[in-house]
């Protein structure tokens, strides 16, 4: 997969996910309203709301992501070194200068968001800026800018919002189904079961979407980032530092986990089938190994 096919595949996937989201939510609400005995009107309302959410996620995902992480935009004089490195990597990648943000958080991590290179944001935590030297920070910034260049940020931003929405929705359903005191007849009972199944399945489906969009592109971004810095060791040693660090992040959530350069919930103590299944990132050791072989 080269970068041009990555770009068009990301653009297409974004549309598909936005469309599937609307279908999924409408179906979910339809089944739910059948089970609870409401009319079809509720599904119609859901269709409209899901449609707007989907379109909104395309345009405003970056703002929402930045708001949930508590990131602040910075000027050159605030973090001159970090800002200069972003400038340099943009020149190397031939990208317009993105907005530069910082999250005040001792846990080292970084992410990029936005909908295209002209509306992009690069964000790092203060922990990351303190921990890394210039060559390592360059590696991390180059990795993030590769996400920008490949349009990963568009897909990942849309996924963050829509997945977050589904998580909230299914949460509501589970509560509503268990706490409603209706006397249901048999037909409704079947829908009731379906509603429960859906409510359980939806977060899993959402997680699987996150996985599908996240793993391969981390390798691709590592590789194209190394192409920008011409120094794979920089990113490799940055990832090594991230791996050793165990500071818990203050403000990452399940909906935004896949945006970061390193999985913010990876504490490396629980290693079983489920952590593997739900891990949004390929193992760091693997990424470091590949970078060192370049």
């Amino acid at each position, binding site marked *: 997969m080269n970068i041009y096919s990555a770009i068009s595949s990301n653009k297409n996937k974004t549309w598909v996910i936005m469309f599937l989201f609307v279908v999924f939510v409408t179906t979910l609400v339809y089944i739910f309203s059948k089970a609870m005995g409401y009319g079809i009107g509720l599904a119609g309302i859901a269709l409209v709301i899901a449609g707007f959410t989907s379109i909104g996620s395309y345009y405003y995902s970056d703002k929402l992501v930045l708001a949930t992480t508590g990131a602040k935009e910075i000027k050159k004089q605030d973090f001159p070194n970090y800002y200069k490195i972003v*400038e*340099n990597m943009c020149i*190397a990648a*031939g990208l317009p200068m993105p907005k530069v943000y910082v999250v005040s958080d001792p846990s080292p991590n970084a992410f990029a968001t936005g909908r295209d290179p002209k509306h992009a944001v690069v964000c790092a935590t203060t922990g990351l800026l303190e921990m890394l030297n210039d060559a390592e920070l360059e590696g991390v910034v180059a990795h993030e800018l590769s996400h920008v260049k490949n349009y990963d940020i568009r897909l990942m931003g849309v996924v963050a919002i829509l997945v977050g929405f589904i998580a909230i929705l299914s949460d509501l359903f589970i509560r509503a189904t268990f706490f409603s005191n209706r006397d249901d007849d048999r037909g409704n009972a079947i829908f009731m079961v379906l509603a429960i199944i859906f409510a359980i399945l939806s977060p899993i489906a959402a997680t699987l979407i996150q996985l599908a969009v996240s793993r391969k592109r981390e390798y691709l971004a590592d590789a194209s980032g190394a192409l920008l810095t011409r120094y794979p060791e920089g990113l490799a040693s940055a990832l090594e530092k991230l791996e050793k660090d165990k500071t818990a992040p203050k403000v990452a959530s399940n909906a935004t986990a896949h945006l970061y350069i390193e999985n913010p919930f990876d504490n490396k103590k629980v290693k079983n089938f489920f952590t593997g299944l739900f891990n949004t990132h390929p193992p760091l050791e693997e990424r470091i190994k590949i970078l060192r072989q370049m």
Partner: protein
Amino acid sequence: MNIIIIVAVILAILAFVWFLYNSIIVAKLRVNEALSQIDVQLKRRTDLIPNLVETVKGYAKHEKQLFEDVTKERANLVSASSLEEKAKANNQLTETFKSIFAVAEAYPALRASENFMQLQEEVSDTENKIAYSRQFYNSNVLDYNTKLVVFPNVLIAGMLGFKSAEFFAATEAEKKAVKVSF
């Protein structure tokens, strides 16, 4: 019937040439854009020189030769039109900047001056930016030049008047330099 076939074949060939032409011209435009990025950074660098000369003069009056050199090289860079001239002038400047900073070592008051430190910072930042814009330019040149010589582009590229683009050469010292920072 035959005429229709002939027309169809000609149209197919034209469509094919059109497609190839577009793919090459896009690559060429990318090269030009990357070149203008280098120019932006070279301009930044030439703009720094008068300021730097003034500052150093304030502390190290008798390094006349150095000031003459740097002013001459700046003029060379500003007037350079071909890529080769630009690269050469730029590389000479890099060397002269090195000697200026080496000379500054002998003047503690200069080294300690806030203005000088800031300029030194700016110069090294600009040098990094030139290096990165050169890297971006060269990768675009590689892409474009490859497009010219692969089959079937090679059959028509010459006829359409496309010429391979020049790489922006680095100094010998820079070629050897390995980026290490601990």
